[in-house]
């Protein structure tokens, strides 16, 4: 299992993530980049704050990686998540998957971001001009 999993309070480096995930064996690389949107449901977002239960989040991210390796012929897999204060346009998450063929790369990348959003203990608070809200906390 060739993976690189990281939680960091520093800006994520997209190019070095891609460089790491590319291999001479792979023909298809899929990358998902999450960015901070400037608005949610019509309200202007000033910034986002991400917080992680870091030890557990890393453990859950490794479980996701393990599952992806067992479900698809993945060559390399990268999950970087940023925490702290992020401005609009900044990147909270990068997922990269390299495979011999593109089918597996697309499917594994999709699986990883979907599952991360369901199981990994990381929380984001949206800060608006007139208030703030922990995303997904309330009905």
């Amino acid at each position: 299992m060739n993976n690189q999993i990281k939680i960091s309070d520093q800006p994520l480096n997209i190019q070095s993530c891609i460089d790491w995930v590319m291999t001479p064996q792979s023909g298809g690389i899929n990358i998902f980049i999450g960015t901070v949107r400037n608005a949610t449901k019509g309200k202007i977002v000033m910034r986002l704050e991400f917080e992680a239960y870091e030890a557990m989040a890393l453990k859950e991210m490794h479980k996701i990686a393990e599952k992806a390796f067992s479900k698809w012929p993945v060559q390399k897999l990268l999950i970087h998540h940023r925490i702290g204060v992020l401005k609009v346009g900044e990147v909270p998450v990068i997922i990269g998957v390299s495979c011999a063929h593109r089918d597996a790369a697309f499917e594994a990348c999709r699986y990883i971001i979907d599952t991360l959003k369901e199981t990994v203990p990381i929380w984001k608070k949206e800060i608006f001009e007139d208030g703030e809200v922990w995303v997904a906390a309330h009905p």
Partner: protein
Amino acid sequence: MKVNVLAFGIAKDIFGGSSVEVELPEQGTTQNLKQSLEERYPRLKHLVSYMVAVNNEYASDESLLTERDEVAIIPPVSGG
């Protein structure tokens, strides 16, 4: 026994801090912990849902707790 409970995200706001101490009977379960917390912090019940993690793993309601466990309240996650 006394269990130290870590709080994250909105749970931190509800508890007014990043951890709280909860007094539980010996052989207390995750379910007992939730009841005790919900009595003390009724706003917990307004969340969409929340989980308890024991030693960095999601725990079922029947999980037994000990004083040595690392216990945490996990409100709905929203990473990515």
